[in-house]
């Protein structure tokens, strides 16, 4: 068969794209390890193993070349995102089950790489938080300094996870305190509690989200992602939280707090930027990101869940094809709308 032009190609591959996404997650993983201990590395390993196993089985069933697709790195990215969004001391089967659900159902049953309408990692998160709400909200306390052996035993169920070991996430703590205070408590006094809160967001967690921001900016600089989705996402959070904060600073936390709490940074740079399930046109990406930010903020401030990034991304995934359709950029020679 005669190959057709172009005969030269840029050095680029799906594997390279996915590897760079993983590289960009490393600062966050490093901070996470410093914060919680090696449990997070264990979870990443469990998720990766489950993802590759699920991927291999599905590729085999679908008759696709194993080596080519296993090495594309897409399953690894999904696995890492799941490990980073699940509670780090969650039992191994929760992470493994969630990851398998993401790979088998959310990815391969929809046609595999490039075909999934929903972000697989967020499907796993949503499925698990709905099915195992208690397990999915057991976040380890900051003051808990468990040795790796202890963490290993908790994750694999040899030691029962004690309720005393867990603490509410900063977002949850703020929401609960505001509710309990019934108007008498102000955000400022709640955030003064240095057990839960740090310099500008959750204690400890703020450095994690900052590390995600650093990794995300590197991804943008590497041209793996464009600025549109993160800017839309962060812009929407800033506008909404800023507006409400200016309106009533006693009841609403500042934009800074919201940006560096929960899943905003991870979501804005690593999850909502997933090109397969997101919008693809420049304007569409801004709208997509802004939609994610809007819904995430509404859920985390007014809704029942501690954070809303996963549901926001999934809801916007549904809208992505329509957004792309309605935001087609003008082509060369049709710029005047003619």
């Amino acid at each position, binding site marked *: 068969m005669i190959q*057709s032009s172009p005969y030269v190609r840029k050095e680029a591959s799906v594997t390279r794209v996915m590897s760079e996404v993983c590289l960009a997650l490393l600062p966050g993983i490093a901070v996470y390890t410093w914060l919680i201990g090696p449990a997070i590395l264990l979870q990443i390993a469990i998720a990766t193993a489950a993802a590759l196993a699920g991927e291999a089985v599905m590729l085999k069933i679908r008759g696709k070349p194993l080596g080519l697709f296993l090495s594309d790195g897409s399953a690894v990215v999904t696995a890492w995102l799941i490990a980073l969004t699940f509670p780090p001391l969650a039992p191994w089967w929760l992470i493994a089950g969630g990851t398998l659900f993401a790979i088998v159902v959310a990815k391969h049953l929809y046609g595999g790489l490039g075909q999934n309408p929903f972000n697989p990692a967020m499907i796993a998160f949503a499925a698990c938080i709905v099915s195992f709400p208690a397990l999915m909200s057991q976040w380890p306390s900051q003051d808990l300094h468990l040795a790796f052996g202890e963490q290993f035993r908790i994750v694999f169920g040899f030691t029962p996870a004690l309720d005393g070991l867990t603490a509410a996430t900063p977002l949850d703590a703020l929401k609960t305190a505001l509710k309990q205070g019934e108007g008498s408590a102000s955000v400022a006094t709640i955030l003064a509690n240095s057990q839960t809160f740090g310099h500008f967001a959750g204690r400890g967690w703020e450095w994690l989200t900052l590390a995600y921001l650093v990794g995300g900016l590197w991804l943008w600089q590497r041209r793996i992602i464009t600025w549109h989705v993160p800017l839309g996402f962060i812009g929407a959070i800033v506008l909404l939280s800023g507006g409400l904060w200016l309106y009533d600073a006693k009841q609403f936390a500042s934009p800074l707090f919201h940006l560096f709490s929960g899943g905003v940074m991870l979501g804005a740079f690593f999850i909502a930027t997933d*090109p397969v399930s997101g919008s*693809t046109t420049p304007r569409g990406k801004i709208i997509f990101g802004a939609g994610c930010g809007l819904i995430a903020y509404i859920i985390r401030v007014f809704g029942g869940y501690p954070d809303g990034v996963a549901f926001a991304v999934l809801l916007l995934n549904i809208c992505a094809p329509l957004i792309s359709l309605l935001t087609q950029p003008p082509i*060369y020679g049709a710029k005047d709308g003619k």
Partner: protein
Amino acid sequence: MFQIFKFNGGVKPPSHKTQSVTEPIGVAPLPSRLVVPLHQSIGGTPRPVVKTGDRVLKGQLIGEADGWISAAVHAPTSGTVRDVGMYLQPHPSGLTAASVVIEPDGKDEWIERVPVDYRKLSLPEVQKALQQAGIVGLGGAAFPAHGKLVAPAQNPIDTLVINGGECEPFITCDDMLMRERAEGVVRGTAIYRDLLQARQVLIGIEDNKPEAVAAMREAVARLGEDFQVVAVPAIYPAGSAKQLIRMLTGKEVPSGKLPTTIGIQCYNVATAYATWRAIEFGEPLISRLLTITGNVERPRNWEVLVGTPIDELLALAGPKADTDGVIMGGPMMGFAVPDAQVSIIKASNCLIARSPGLFPPNLPEMPCIRCGECARACPADLQPYEMYWFARAKNFGKAQEYHVFDCIECGCCSFVCPSHIPLVQYFRFAKSEIWARERDKQAADTAKNRYEFKLEREEREKAEKAEKLAKAAAAQAAKKAAEQAAAEQAGAAADVAPSTATTPPADDPEAAKKAAIAAAMERAAAQRAAAQPQNTDALTPAQQQEIDQIEARRAQAGIAEDTAASEKNQP
């Protein structure tokens, strides 16, 4: 300071241009034989005017233009016509086409060359002269140059853009032309400026050719012209007419329209040069500059005769041992020649010897992950990943909605795709499929029209026949009635009984019936005539316009036919 605009997208492949510009332009020796294809431009296939055994002189007409968008073909050297027949073409299709084979006699004896004093001629006369000189666009598209000359009175041209972009990697023939023969390019440009009465002339050259820019500026100044020689950023495809026009003027050629609609016309530097040779010296287009490079010992530019077999040319450059094929054109838009026996045509600008090291085979194709790199690289501002989706699903209507026909097939999307999808190949496929369907539909429409016309004619003839019969019957009846009346009068005169006079004639009811039938048929015929269009004699202007449009579309499809047909043969 001249303002340079930007076009969106574009890529920067490694240029590989330096190796072929170290030597001056060489003149390729006369080949052992020349195979000159008759169809060398967009448009019709010139008719051969020589036959086997004829002696031809250098520059003698061997194929005459068969229509307006068609350009003459000439003998590149003197010699004997050995065959007029079907030969393999330098085209990815691997198809054969009518060609004239000439065995050179080594004398290289010219016909009488008559310069054209274009200033004294009318525009149509100059156009005719250029057509007869076989001047076609040498930038790659090979559109007959005379066909792009619009009458200034009807379509004023503000800006003449001369394209010296040469953005494809490896190719340096325009670069060397401008370095060594800048004066001819500038003089040819002046001819087009005069013919089009353009207000300004912009010569765009990529800034990776500083020697060419300097030589052109020097020539422009020396000849006292006011042309602007503009160095544009070297970003592929800056040498594509639409993108160069955007860079130089900030204007975009409206989608699906010609640059002339916005008062711009564009010619390649080599076309300007060839035009000057034709006008000033009466030399038809029989040779061109060709870069021979790639996996060879001696990369260089050569002046080669049209029709030279490429294996003889490659031998000049000395292909290395691991050479495994030849690409004609650049690596972004060129094609692998089906056989080294095929010859150089007017549109050929480069031969690249391939090797696995130089052009590694394609990596396995992965699914599209919609990363959008292709859209960011597309200089036509299209969304290739969307068009790919629809082209792959053979949903060509949708592909067309996403402007597949605005694709210039530059290959930027394939170049950047991390999934190694041959995107541009999908778009070529989609275009050729759409053309094929249009052609099928038109053929069906034509057949349907023909059939309906036949039915209508039969119907009409039947009606006319019936009418004639009815008229004859009525005439006979009238005649009989008259005879009867005459007989009665005679009878009355002879005092016949009154009873017979009042009695109607025996055959009268019959005649009345016939007349009634005739009248009914006449009415029916009139109704039919009103309900159905008559033949093409009595068309309304609207109908005529519609037919003209259909004809135009058909003609266009005819032009596209070769490309479409050949592309279908690609993998």
